[in-house]
Structure formats: C-alpha cells, structure tokens
C-alpha cells in the first residue's frame, strides 16, 4: 500500500467514525460538532483526491457557514423540553436492513466490475484552471445557482419575519 493509500484509509476511517458518532447523538449540538469533524475529514479527502478548491469550499461553506447556521437555529429553539427523540426500533429496523442490503449489492457491483483494479492516479485540478473551466463552460448554471440563492434568501426573510406566530386556531386570513 502506498503512502497515499494509507492516508486515504485513515481519512476514510475518520470520516465514517465521526459521521457515525454524529448520527447516533441524542442532542443536536453534539451531532453538529461531530459533523464539523466529518466535513473536515471529507475536505482533506478532497485535497488528497486532487480538488484543492473544493476542499477549501467544503471547509468554508459546509464546516463553516452551514454548521454555524445549524448552531444558531439550535440556540433559538428550546430543545431541553423535547420528549423522546427517536423512533421506535420496530419502525426503522426494516428500512435499515433494506438499506444494508442495498449497500451490500452496490458494493458487490462496484467490486466485481471488470475494471475494479483500476487505481486512482494522483492528479490535481488547479484552482485557477477549475475556475476558468466553470466560468467558460458552465456560466449559465452558475447564474442559476446565484438565482436560487437569491430565492432562498427572500424565502428565509419572508418566513422569518414572525408571521408564523399566529396560532393554528387563529383567525383565517382572507
């Protein structure tokens, strides 16, 4: 196993472990802190797999902005008084078994691929080259994403203005 392979497996183990810890926490704050670790591990994985720009974006947007947003929302809600926060085992075990089945079948399909021995060779997409590529060939999706973010911003402002405090049994607006 090469040095890069060792780094890959270490990062993969850290990623799976921190994600598993995140999804098993009862309190959302603990889950979010473990999730930051998980996103860090995947950012390092992106760097190893030759995407330094995406690694930077992963840290800035996911581990930074999105997780801070989650923390703010958790702070806005009173979570202490919430009752039991898990579904009963009988409800999710069948679905869990089915998804495990899909994982096994998918893993077999990937591993028995005739080209399964093809290894990933180290390469790197320079940030400058990736930026030029995106803005030359995919400028329209970039504009669509910016429009989507604007729509999300307007929706968040409109919903967050406090009109939601009206009770369910309150007066019906005409």
């Amino acid at each position: 196993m090469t040095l890069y392979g060792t780094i890959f497996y270490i990062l993969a183990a850290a990623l799976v472990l921190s994600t598993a810890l995140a999804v098993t926490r009862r309190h959302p704050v603990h889950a979010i802190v473990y999730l930051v670790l998980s996103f860090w591990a995947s950012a390092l994985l992106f760097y190893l797999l030759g995407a330094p720009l995406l690694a930077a974006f992963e840290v800035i947007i996911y581990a930074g902005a999105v997780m801070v947003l989650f923390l703010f929302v958790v702070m806005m809600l009173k979570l202490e008084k919430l009752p039991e926060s898990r579904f009963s085992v009988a409800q999710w075990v069948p679905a869990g078994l089915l998804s495990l089945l899909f994982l096994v079948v998918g893993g077999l399909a990937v591993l028995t691929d005739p080209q399964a021995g093809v290894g990933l060779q180290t390469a790197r997409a320079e940030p400058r080259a990736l930026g030029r590529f995106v803005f030359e060939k995919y400028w329209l999706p970039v504009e669509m994403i910016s429009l989507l973010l604007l729509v999300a911003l307007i929706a968040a402002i409109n919903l967050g203005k406090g009109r939601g405090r009206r009770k369910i049994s309150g007066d019906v607006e005409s």
Partner: protein
Amino acid sequence: MIVPYGHGFILAGVVFLLGLMCILVHRNLIMTLIGVEIMMNAATIAFVTSALLWRRMEEQAFVLFIIGVAAAEVSVGLILIVTAYRRTGSLDPDRFNILKW
C-alpha cells in the same frame, strides 16, 4: 496509485447510508436536516472520486453546484423548521400533520 477507485465509491455509499439512518432513526427535524447534509456530502465524495478516475473537470464543477444547492436548501429548511416550531412548539415530524394553516 492511491486506491482502487471502487473504495472511494464504497466510502461514499457508507456515508450516504449513515445519513439515511440519521433520517430514519431520529424523531427530530434538525437531525433530519443533518442527515440530508450528510447524504449530499456523500454525493460530493462520489463525484470527486469519479473526477479523479476519468480525469475530467465536469465532476468537480458539479460538486461546486451541489455545495451551492445544499447551502440554499439548508437555509430554507432551517427557517421552515423555525416557523413550524413557532406554530406548534415541537420538532416532532409526526406533529406536523395539519396542512390547514
């Protein structure tokens, strides 16, 4: 050579299923949204692996768009959760069965 490419995809599959289990197990809307984030992260891992496998930049451009869409999705999803909490005082998805607002 780093690893056989299948290992990257299997890693993405494992992380995706962890996100799915997060949605299935928790009776809490914030944990549901966290599960969606984990699943999107798994999709980006698969994209980056395939970008390295086929030596193209299209996949990396797609990862950029996935991150943008995830940011928009999480902001709208969180504000919906806050609105629902203000109305019902609960984060249990089973409580939100009234479509009449």
